């Protein structure tokens, strides 16, 4: 059903307005969301097309003789594509379901609990997992996750899926430190072990030419993502708020694949034009405030969050999900050991590069150790806030996030001590039964009013 809706949605921009209106009947409860993407022009259309192609790829994998891997947003997909394995990303499907279905993924969240999964577990996986466990979607062949010790709630969802479906499980297990020879050696050994697992369960060996192709795309994608991040430093920010979701959403699904490169190229082109005009990326071209999310976005209630930011002229500087730690990313400058570089000089170099990339994926990099340790959450949030001139930081999460909920009070206290207004929201990004959209916007509005954050005229913009 998700594929069918997205497939229709991806075609909407090509027809007449009559066809558009007729087709909307085929994508119920999706009208506002669609418009949000389509008004971005070419990047929005390419994103919808990418979603349709990704879901079609998942749907047709078995027919095409491909293996399907149940995996997480924190697992970089290049190594899976190098094996011709289709990554079935739980969080991506939870977001799609949350956005597309009238009542989000509520019924699947609850179905998981009927099967024995705790109701307090993370909804980021639970929303889609319910559908997969109910047999309503494609059955994965094996599981790969990389969050044990980083986010046990995440890892637990995948371990549960593996045990429930009785399918093979592989975990990349990161130590709490990121840098240094010892950690690097461990990352790389663990990653090579993953390759062994993939070889065993696909019945193939890693093809160097195929890997080189994926690496080539990955390298180009890294350059483009870094360019977009650089644009976020400008005042006003010429990057539309929705690009945040589009970049990490597409990367989660198609990192290393040509379609993602095309999307990024289109985004950079559009943002460059806006930057040359010195206008904000919002529809009004004004910028009244700049927000940085220190964790994730908010997806419930048709993903109105990004549109709400746009309508309120609040520039979104990104979230933890948009930090990938390429060596050339502006936030990685002067912190070279924390960044990674794609090296395409031979098989070993390519494998090591992907191991380094994987160990620095969103969430995996920043919350693997104590929040106030060097290279970790506090330093990353502070660095980003200063680099991007954030007016305030907001924390959205899920009720199941033990890791961040165990330290976010401390983080926001430290950020406030550094004079960065920080808003801690008790919400669930994937389940609006925890906090309604109205309650959330009410709290944000109150916060920016009380803290005097909003610039009434958007005066810093030239247009």
């Amino acid at each position, binding site marked *: 059903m998700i594929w069918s809706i997205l497939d229709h949605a991806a075609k909407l921009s090509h027809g007449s307005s009559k066809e558009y209106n007729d087709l909307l009947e085929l994508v119920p409860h999706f009208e506002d969301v669609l418009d949000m993407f389509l008004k971005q022009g070419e990047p929005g259309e390419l994103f919808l097309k990418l979603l349709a192609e990704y879901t079609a790829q998942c749907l047709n994998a078995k027919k095409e003789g491909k293996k399907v891997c149940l995996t997480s947003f924190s697992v970089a997909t290049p190594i899976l594509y190098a094996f011709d394995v289709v990554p079935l990303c739980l969080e991506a499907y939870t977001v799609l379901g949350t956005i597309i279905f009238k009542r989000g993924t509520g019924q699947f969240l609850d179905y998981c609990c009927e099967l024995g999964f705790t109701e307090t577990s993370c909804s980021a996986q639970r929303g889609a997992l319910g559908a997969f466990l109910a047999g309503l979607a494609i059955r994965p062949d094996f599981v790969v996750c990389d969050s044990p010790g980083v986010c046990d709630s995440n890892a637990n969802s995948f371990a*549960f899926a593996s045990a429930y479906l009785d399918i093979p499980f592989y975990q990349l297990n990161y130590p709490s430190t990121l840098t240094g020879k*010892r950690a690097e050696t461990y990352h790389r050994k663990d990653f090579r072990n993953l390759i062994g697992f993939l070889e065993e369960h696909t019945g193939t060996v890693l093809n160097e030419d195929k890997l080189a192709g994926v690496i080539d795309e990955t390298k180009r994608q890294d350059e483009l993502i870094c360019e977009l991040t650089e644009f976020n430093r400008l005042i006003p920010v010429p990057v539309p708020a929705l690009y945040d979701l589009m970049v990490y959403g597409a990367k989660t699904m198609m990192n290393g694949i040509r379609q993602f490169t095309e999307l990024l190229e289109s985004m950079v082109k559009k943002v460059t034009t806006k930057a040359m005009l010195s206008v904000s990326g919002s529809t009004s071209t004004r910028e009244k405030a700049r927000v940085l999310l220190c964790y994730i976005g908010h997806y419930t209630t048709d993903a109105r969050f990004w549109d709400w930011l746009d309508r309120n002229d609040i520039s979104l500087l990104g979230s933890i999900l948009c930090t990938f730690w390429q060596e050339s990313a502006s936030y990685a400058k002067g912190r070279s050991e924390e960044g990674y570089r794609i090296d395409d000089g031979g098989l070993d170099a390519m494998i090591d590069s992907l191991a380094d990339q994987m160990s620095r994926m969103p969430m995996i990099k920043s919350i693997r150790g104590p929040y106030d340790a060097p290279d970790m959450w506090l330093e990353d949030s502070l660095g980003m806030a200063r680099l991007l001139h954030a007016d305030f930081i907001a924390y959205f999460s899920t009720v199941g996030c033990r890791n961040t909920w165990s330290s976010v009070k401390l983080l926001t206290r430290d950020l406030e001590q550094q004079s960065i207004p920080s808003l801690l929201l008790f919400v669930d990004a994937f389940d609006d039964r925890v906090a309604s959209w109205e309650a959330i916007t009410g709290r944000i509005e109150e916060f920016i009013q009380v803290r005097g954050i909003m610039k009434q005229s958007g005066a810093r913009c030239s247009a």
Partner: protein
Amino acid sequence: MMREIGDVARAVSNRYIEAWKEAGHKVVGFPCTFVPEEILHAAGILPFRLRGVGTKTLSIGDTYYGPVICSFPKCILQLAGQGDYSFLDGVIITNGCDSMRRLDECWRKAGEDIEGILPGFFYYFGVPHKVTDYSIEWFIEEIRELLGALEKHFETEITDQALHRSIEIYNNGRKLLRKLDSIRASEGISISGEDAMAIIIASSSMPREDFNTLAEMTLSHVKKSDAGMAGKKRLMIVGSANDDLDFIRLIEDSGALVVADTMCFGSKSYDDLVDEAGDPVEALARRYLSHSYCPRMFGYYKERLDYIRKKAAEVRVDGIILQNIRFCDLHGSENGIFERDLEKEGIPCMRMEREYGPLVETGRIKMRIDAFMERIG
């Protein structure tokens, strides 16, 4: 003797710790069974398993932790903040789970606000989540780093000879606890689950030499006694950490007898021995990392299921209580699949979510246990 053991098990501190401190010795606390106690013991330090027993409020725990967090580490933080852990000279925090590993930051930050609650030695100990040659290698290095940090801070030397001796003493303690298990598995059971749990908890709350002596005497007495346990339903407890004797008594008050468990305050802490030959650090690393009975070791569900099956058969259980502390998704979720698989094999199971700490839910828990007893009766 049981009263003596009960006193140790029912409170955070006890007369053994007081005597130990009066003699000028050091105590280091740790929250999880993945910390090799032998290392501390070999350094002449008393290893003490951190507990939250006796907590009456969570005013401090809730200040630093967020709202949707397991009450076990919150209770530990609460007691630390109140000064109940003032006898500790050091603390080792592990990444047992997300909530537990953040005790590191919460305790440190509370220490900035409340004077004197942060021990001089405060150490984060990273434990891998999988068993491979390279993860064991990593763990060996972690243990060596911990060993070096202890030597430096406490100005002591931990020799291989001392480690071998400590391993032997701890193995002896484990053997005694396994003997206790075999008594509980026998036909004419003569010890309640509450008393058995008190003995097990005491093992990590007092000097191990004293414990071994006390346990030996207690077990010889138990064998001779007849406590009239015949005819009771035999239950096993599986799941999250529990050191609350009142919880066990509540279950047994419903006409049951708790004969076994797979909890970390229970059999997980003694069911396998450390190899006494070869390099002691390597032997400790292999033993502590390889006993994957905790769901923090992701991907080992089948091994854990087999362990429960084996134990259930050995002690001939009539039913299993699969319990978890609220927000402990690792145990809670795995309990869901245990229930599916064990029920299929004809073993009655009951899942129960509860809070750690004072039994504030006695009525609800009793009602559920009564219903379960009725089912298996």
